[in-house]
């Protein structure tokens, strides 16, 4: 039974599809944390990304225009988070949760302003699968990896860009140093504040694109509660990936694989016996288990959650 599922191409395609929003948001969070800032605004920023991207398209913009709007909205809330946590050094926990509440309620407020009476949200035409010639004919791997929407391909590109930037460029070195030893960065004459703020703003933009994936590629409309804890799961994925883009990607794919599996298991005889809520719980329990498993080995950025103030010694 398990094998039957694992041998279908649709299962692997679903796993990659489910992973895509997580990949964007996980990379976003990873960039923030590598610079030393925990961004708990992620959940709300994904909501505002999902909402604003969809709303832009609904109001007549193109799909890529929607992605750009989502990204800008995310960066705006990222700027707010960065202003409060970096130069002012306020509690990253409280600010993050505040940003999540603000971004979520803003999305709902504007939604109700524009669409006061609707009960079922209007649909848009989402991104369509883009088959890559020849590669799509490879069994299992082909349909899974090479018949996805453009946004999924972009998600994988973002991983590569993040990894190369962080590990192969002076900018990446400076960002990582800001998260490990900000004093040394300042001694080099670089601005820790600037690096951290930049990282949070760019990271938040990516989180919002992850949210926009939900409305512009996975589903075709916006629902309340549609992000449903995905942001928190991405924070767990960053820890699981030991703050490394490649490992975090692997974590997101693994996680999405389990998610795709539980959906399919619900339709099997197992699903007749076990209540569906237990299947839905699995991803959250899995995240907690992953955190426990990785907690001892993980290389936490040394200055994570530590505000840096140039004047202090």
């Amino acid at each position, binding site marked *: 039974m398990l094998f039957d599922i694992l041998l279908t191409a649709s299962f692997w395609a679903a796993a990659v599809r489910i992973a895509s929003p997580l990949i964007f948001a996980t990379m976003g969070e990873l960039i923030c944390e590598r610079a030393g800032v925990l961004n*708990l605004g992620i959940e709300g920023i994904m909501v505002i990304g999902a909402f604003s991207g969809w709303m832009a398209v609904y109001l007549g913009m193109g799909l890529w225009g929607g992605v750009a709007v989502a990204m800008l909205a995310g960066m705006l809330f990222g700027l*707010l988070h960065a202003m*409060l946590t970096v*130069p*002012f*050094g*306020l*509690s990253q*926990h*409280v*600010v993050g*949760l*505040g*940003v999540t*509440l*603000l971004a*979520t*309620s*803003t999305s*709902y*407020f504007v939604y*109700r*302003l524009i669409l*006061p009476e609707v009960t079922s949200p209007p649909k848009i035409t989402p991104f369509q699968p883009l088959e890559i010639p020849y590669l799509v004919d490879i069994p299992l791997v082909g349909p899974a990896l090479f018949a996805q929407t453009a946004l999924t391909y972009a998600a994988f590109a973002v991983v590569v860009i993040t990894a190369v930037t962080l590990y192969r460029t002076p900018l990446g070195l400076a960002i990582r140093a800001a998260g490990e030893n900000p004093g040394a960065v300042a001694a080099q004459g670089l601005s820790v*504040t600037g690096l951290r703020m930049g990282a949070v703003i760019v990271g938040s933009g990516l989180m919002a694109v992850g949210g926009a994936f939900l409305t512009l590629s996975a589903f075709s409309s916006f629902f309340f509660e549609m992000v*449903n*804890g995905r942001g*928190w*799961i991405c*924070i*767990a994925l960053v*820890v699981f990936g030991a703050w490394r883009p490649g490992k975090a990607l692997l974590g997101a794919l693994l996680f999405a694989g389990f998610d795709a599996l539980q959906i399919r298991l619900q339709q099997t005889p197992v699903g007749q016996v076990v*209540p569906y*809520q*237990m299947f*839905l*719980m699995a991803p*959250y*329990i899995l*995240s*907690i288990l992953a*955190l*426990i498993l990785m*907690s*001892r080995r993980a290389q936490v950025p040394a200055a994570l959650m530590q505000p840096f*103030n*140039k*004047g202090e010694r």
Partner: protein
Amino acid sequence: MRLEPIANPGLGRRLGFPAAALVVTVVIASLLAAIAGADPLLTLGLVLKGAAGSKFALLETLNRATPLIFTGLAIAVAFRAKLWNIGAEAQLYAGAIVTVVLGTSVLSGMGAAALPIVGLGAMVAGAVVLLGPVVLKTRFGVDEVVTTLLFNFIMLLLVSYLLEGPMKDPMGMGWPKSAPLDRALRLPRIAEGLRLHWGFGVALIAAGLVWFVQARTTLGYEMRAVGLNPQAARFAGIPVNGVLVKTALLSGGLAALAGFSEVAGLKGHLSQDLSPGFGYTGIIVAMLALLHPLGVVVTAIFVAGIFVGADSMSRAAGVPTYIADMMLATGLLLMVLAIGLTKFRVVRG
């Protein structure tokens, strides 16, 4: 731009910035109302009227404040020790589940005398739910923010399962809700004819007790020490992990009382919409109160008033009710900034 700590902030500074935060929040809320096409002053008036304009409105606000006092206290206690309990929602539901289980089975025949036992049972459940993430923190160093958050989702699914399965009310006409609590186990009203139940009274007592523990006991001192500087606390011989566990038991228990009081005082049964996010709103309540237990009572009534007032305003003026959440989130962020600015001065260069 950098920050320079101020050794002894004056009273003007300590009151001025939070007051300014409140004013700016109201200004922003007025702007939002204007954006929604309503008259800002009229909207504000409608919110006030809906929250406190009549005896009925005021009692409704106090009823809504009751669970917020409990969750606000739960979070104030935890945050004071820098234990980031974001899972009050899960603990609330744990308390509600136990209240219904005890109140519809073993204790249902015992009458009102069993109420304290039910409450205590609920508290134990909430404490246990928070104990999990805290042990993961002290034993494995797993960040409790993420684990408590994830527990909220797990608990909601558990409630959904229980209400569709073992706890489903056979007389519920197919609605996913539990069987009703025994009449004798309902919290009585504070006064005859007043729509306010004793949960509010218990909440006030709880706030007083928490204040006493924090201000007048060794445990309270240790909690503050752990929150201020865990390394220093450990060096001073305070068993940091032990204090965190005790804090968790208290915090989880308080949050669970919110579930107990909502079931036994207001709804009478468990349903999936028992809490419209009381666990999360408790964070705002606690932060606005600067984590002071008696302040929590004031801010909980204030926050409840905004929700109740916004609901009735929304019906009358057509401004989406989510304006309340936006206003509170803005207020939270501005208040955190204001507190930061009382302790630091911004210097150029």
